[in-house]
């Protein structure tokens, strides 16, 4: 019994699913279930299935992708397929497979399609919110003192390094 564990990860509110090799059917169906569970549990914006590690996509895998796309759509997330090679694309036309998914050239573009960079504001947003909400001078002072501490520590830290270099 072969174990196929696909490592999915979430980045910029997208679930990234890299498919690394030609996998047997049961492994693919397991991945499909994993994707749906992960989407449901983490409420991501979308799913990026990356096929850059795969040489062949047959009608079964095509159907699995097409089904997964429809399923994730019903859960409220969009699916983008990335990393298809020219051979796969040519075979798809011959097979008449329709993926029903949005396509992007690579992983980066796929994520951008789901979460445009201007839309995506990482954790810095929280800091900004705090500043806006807290007009209290106390908080502000606290931050100032924190900053001072930081500066002190850096100035304290610097001399040893220069000594070390000498």
């Amino acid at each position, binding site marked *: 019994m072969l174990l196929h564990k696909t490592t999915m990860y979430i980045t910029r509110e997208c679930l990234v699913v890299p498919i690394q090799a030609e996998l047997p059917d049961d492994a693919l169906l397991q991945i499909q279930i994993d994707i749906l569970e992960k989407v449901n549990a983490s409420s991501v914006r979308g799913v990026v299935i990356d096929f850059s590690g795969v*040489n*062949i996509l*047959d*009608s*079964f895998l*095509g*159907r699995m992708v097409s089904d997964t796309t429809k399923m994730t759509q019903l859960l409220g997330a969009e699916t983008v397929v990335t990393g298809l090679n020219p051979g796969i694309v040519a075979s798809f036309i011959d097979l*008449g497979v329709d993926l029903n998914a949005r396509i992007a050239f690579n992983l980066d573009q796929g994520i951008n399609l789901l979460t445009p960079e201007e839309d995506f504001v990482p954790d810095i947003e929280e800091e900004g919110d705090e500043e806006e909400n807290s007009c209290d001078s106390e908080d502000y002072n606290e931050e100032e003192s924190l900053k001072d501490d930081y500066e002190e520590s850096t100035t304290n830290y610097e001399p040893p390094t220069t000594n070390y270099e000498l």
Partner: protein
Amino acid sequence: MRHKEKRVSIKNEIDIVEAVFESKTLAETAGFSLTAQCAVSTAVSELARNIFKYAVKGVIILRIIEKDGNIGMEVVAEDNGPGIENLNLVMKGNYSTGGSLGLGISGVKRLMDEFSIDTKKRQGLRIITRKWA
């Protein structure tokens, strides 16, 4: 001139993956372009999957062939399964008794250059396909 021949018996799902891998390797040795390699392997994948799904077991034979100085690859899929009853419908595509898209066999025909199918009801299936480099 005797060329290499590879036989992959299909009994489990994992054998499909093996058949695909072997076909890819053989197509590479035959000097197929990347796109053609992909087409052959996809066709093998469809044929192997068909065997597993409908006949449970069978064999995929892969060989490099030569004709008038052209190098090609021959893929033979054999099984003793139920055969195909509505061959005309199956060849049109979008018809399947197995709950799939029904694109497999008609897709294989489009992926390869030559295609012949021999089936009698309940006496198995023999598909011979060739692709030239």
